[in-house]
């Protein structure tokens, strides 16, 4: 079966007051039916820009090149009417910060029906059914957003994203503002829904620990590019790129003596997209960089000892 989402050589450049900002610089990725891809990276790495571009939800002045195929159709060449039909019905988004996404003066159920009216075709209200599905209960459809807790709002956003039976769910930091227990509840919910409906999911997060539970495959982004991609558990347990290594090490394993009283981080700051370092953009922060790293910008390539793994680092063997 062909991929639900296939992105090839995607470049996204913002126009800002300080000139053109290359936020995404050549990304390839694909998501198979029923698969969850975790996209991890820190603020400013381009992960949210990438997610928004998948449905062309970026400012009109933004330059996008490459291709984004959703169920075989290229999003970037679609006419407005086609795009409108693809949004929500083929792919929908669960945004971060549920507090700010919901309309505060509309009842939850009404907001869900609006999404269906705008993008789908159902003539009867499905809000109740969807709210039941996400464990909120149909009766909460009469509530206003302020009557719900953070976790409940996030559940209602998930209900809204499912309203038109999409093939792909794009979840942008869906659990970031939530408490650990509520976060676990939401992850479990997303996992159940994904299994029951055979959904594909793009799960974007800065918190790698969330992905261990959720993602079949994980891609790590740095400075607008994917620098490592591979099977979820294998990558999180044994990352090969020095940046992914630093990122995984910064989440302590409770009970592991090597991290007790040893918080680990990464010195330096992410690069300014307007002024990227030469060679590998990570080399100024890299603890194992060699001379070559200042001049050679390695593309993603297969790692020798893991078929499913690709890494963009001179130190990680060629296939």
């Amino acid at each position, binding site marked *: 079966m062909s991929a639900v989402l296939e992105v090839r050589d995607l470049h996204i450049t913002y126009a800002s007051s300080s000139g053109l900002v290359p936020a995404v610089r050549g990304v390839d990725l694909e998501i198979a039916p029923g698969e969850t891809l975790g996209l991890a990276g820190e603020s400013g790495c381009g992960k949210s820009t990438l997610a928004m571009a998948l449905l062309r939800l970026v400012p009109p002045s933004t330059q996008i090149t490459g291709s984004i195929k959703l169920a075989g159709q290229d999003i970037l060449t679609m006419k407005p009417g086609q795009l409108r039909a693809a949004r929500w019905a083929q792919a929908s988004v669960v945004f971060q910060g549920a507090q700010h996404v919901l309309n505060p003066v509309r009842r939850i159920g009404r907001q869900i029906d609006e999404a269906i009216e705008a993008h789908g075709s159902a003539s009867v209200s499905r809000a109740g059914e969807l709210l039941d599905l996400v464990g909120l209960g149909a009766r909460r459809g009469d509530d206003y957003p302020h009557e719900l807790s953070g976790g409940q709002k996030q559940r209602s956003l998930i209900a809204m994203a499912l309203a038109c039976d999409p093939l792909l769910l794009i979840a942008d930091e869906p659990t970031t503002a939530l408490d650990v*227990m509520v976060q676990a509840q939401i992850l479990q919910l997303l996992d159940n829904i994904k299994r029951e409906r055979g959904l594909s999911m793009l799960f974007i997060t800065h918190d790698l620990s969330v992905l261990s539970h959720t993602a079949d495959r994980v891609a790590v982004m740095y400075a607008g590019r994917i620098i490592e991609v591979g099977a979820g558990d294998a990558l999180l347990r044994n990352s090969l790129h020095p940046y992914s290594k630093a990122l995984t090490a910064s989440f302590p394993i409770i009970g592991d003596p090597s*991290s007790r009283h040893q918080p680990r981080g990464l010195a330096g700051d992410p690069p300014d997209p307007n002024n990227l370092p030469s060679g590998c953009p990570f080399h100024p922060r890299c603890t194992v960089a060699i001379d070559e790293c200042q001049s050679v910008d390695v593309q993603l390539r297969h790692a020798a000892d893991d078929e499913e793994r690709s890494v963009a680092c001179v130190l990680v063997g060629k296939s």
Partner: protein
Amino acid sequence: MCAGGQIMTATESLLNVSNVHVAYPARRRGGKSARAVDGVDLEIRLGEIVALVGESGCGKTTLARAILGLQKISEGLIAFDGELLPTSANGKKAFRRRVQIVFQDPTASLNPRQSVYEIVAEGLRIHGLGENEHHVVKTALEQCGLHPAERYMLKYPHELSGGQRQRVVIAGAMVLKPQLLVADEPVSSLDASVRGEILALLQRLARDENMAVLVVTHDLGLPWNIADRIAVMYLGRIVEIGTTEELLANPKHPYTQALLSVVLEHLGMPQQILVGEMPDPTEIASGCRFHPRCPLVQSGEAQRRGIADRCTHEDPLLQMSGNQQSVACHAVGV
């Protein structure tokens, strides 16, 4: 541990919180007050790092504010260095030099119109410690990892990264050489790679300056990184407290066990996801405040052990269980 009402004056004890309650009055007439902090005992010793762990709404920030003297308590006692928190203006000022705070979001806590130098020097000026100001500011900035200090002194907050801003906030606290630093979610708004750097800094400062740190967090990984002891809070009460090693290796309260299971699931531990969310502090259940969500009660385990009745009717007190661990649960030891 601090026994009910009595203030300990052991030499190593720095802060003693004893049976502290904070109740916010009801919004409407006839409504119930919100018992945000509902009877907390806590001791912090000189130079130790204590993590206060809990979810939003558990009262951890209110308790931290009460310790800082920023929140009036409705019952109980708080003593710092053997004396009750001061009420006079002069006493408060002196106290505030010795106890400093670091908030979650460094962008919100820094004045955007002040340079780094002015931000760090402000505390010195307020407390009349302006002698040798330039040297003190420079030392504090470098101690907090911003060196050479000259490179940062004239910058403004918007010219710094999130991690650098938090270092400036910490430097502003450190110039006053506090004995206690209260850090409220000091890394939760920072990127993962910066998180470890800031935690390492807090740990180093605590050791070098023999400064106690109370770090308020929702993340159980943070105490494993830096804390000597952990207090777990649920709905206004500390339900379990102990050394980090003891408590994380062998959590005894069902709430702690559940919290730990959801962060440890990558180790293949079965997840214990609790149903529902933390209740409103106006509606604290009778008996054990955790019983409506407790897996032991829900699974019938409490019934089998013959404690179900106590769980629903009798408020459990923190009791020693293990070396330095205390737990408020009827099931422990049954």
